[in-house]
């Protein structure tokens, strides 16, 4: 039986715990910010594809929220590492 939604939910929870631990252990700086932002992109894309259901939608519509995510997260990275 396909359990895609459960797996996606599990990955989102694990990545959220990872982000929280980075904060609690005072590791969310320097190189780890890049890692954290990458996991944030993965989380956002998982919600867009599997929860919003954009995975099976024509590319021109699927790309709009994805491009937003890429632009926002890479701009945050630029502002951090400038």
């Amino acid at each position, binding site marked *: 039986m396909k359990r895609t939604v459960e797996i996606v939910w599990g990955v989102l929870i694990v990545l959220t715990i990872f982000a929280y631990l*980075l904060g609690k252990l005072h590791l969310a700086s320097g190189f780890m910010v890049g890692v954290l932002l990458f996991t944030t992109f993965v989380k956002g894309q998982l*919600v867009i594809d599997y929860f919003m*259901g954009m995975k099976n939608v024509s590319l021109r519509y699927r790309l709009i929220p994805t491009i937003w995510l890429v632009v926002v997260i890479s701009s*945050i990275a630029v502002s951090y590492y400038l």
Partner: protein
Amino acid sequence: MAKSVTIKEPYPPGDFAIWLVIYVELITFGFMFLGYAFSRHADVALFNKSQLLLNQTSGFIDTLILITGSYFIVKAVNLVKNAKGEQIIKEANQKASKWIAASVLFGCLFLINKLLEFSDIFSQGISLGTNKFFMFYLLLTMFHFMHVTLGTIILFNIFRRTKASAYSAENTRGIETGAVYWHLVDVLWIVLFPLIYIIR
């Protein structure tokens, strides 16, 4: 060898009008996120010092609540999307109503948790005018709070419709429209949480 081909849907799920709202929201929040990020760059020390007053655990719980609420909605949408035939439609709507009720409950839990967080912040004498960090923090989280409130109201209405067995494989537009709005709120928080609560 047979090759499976997935036919792509021409349009996103839900009413197209909600997608116009979603695009506007993405642009608005996008500018606010970038405003925060570049303001932080201009005064890292102030932002790092102010951030210490935030409750990271509260932000973490908020994220878990939103993600899990989103999962409940996906389960409800999937149930009614496959419902054909009077009896199956009725059963699917009854099951979906339980998932939606759970997501409404999670929406309320988010709002309660956020109110407790705001109350803690205000009790420390912090306001919009305290400094630039708190101006962004309050503006972003309160603006997001308003979206969760609206999302919860929408979900409650969907709950009532499922109770009336309104959705079926041929009629999913209403539930999908509410669902994508909620997932938008989720995506926005997924970016907001590390940006404001975690990154130092």
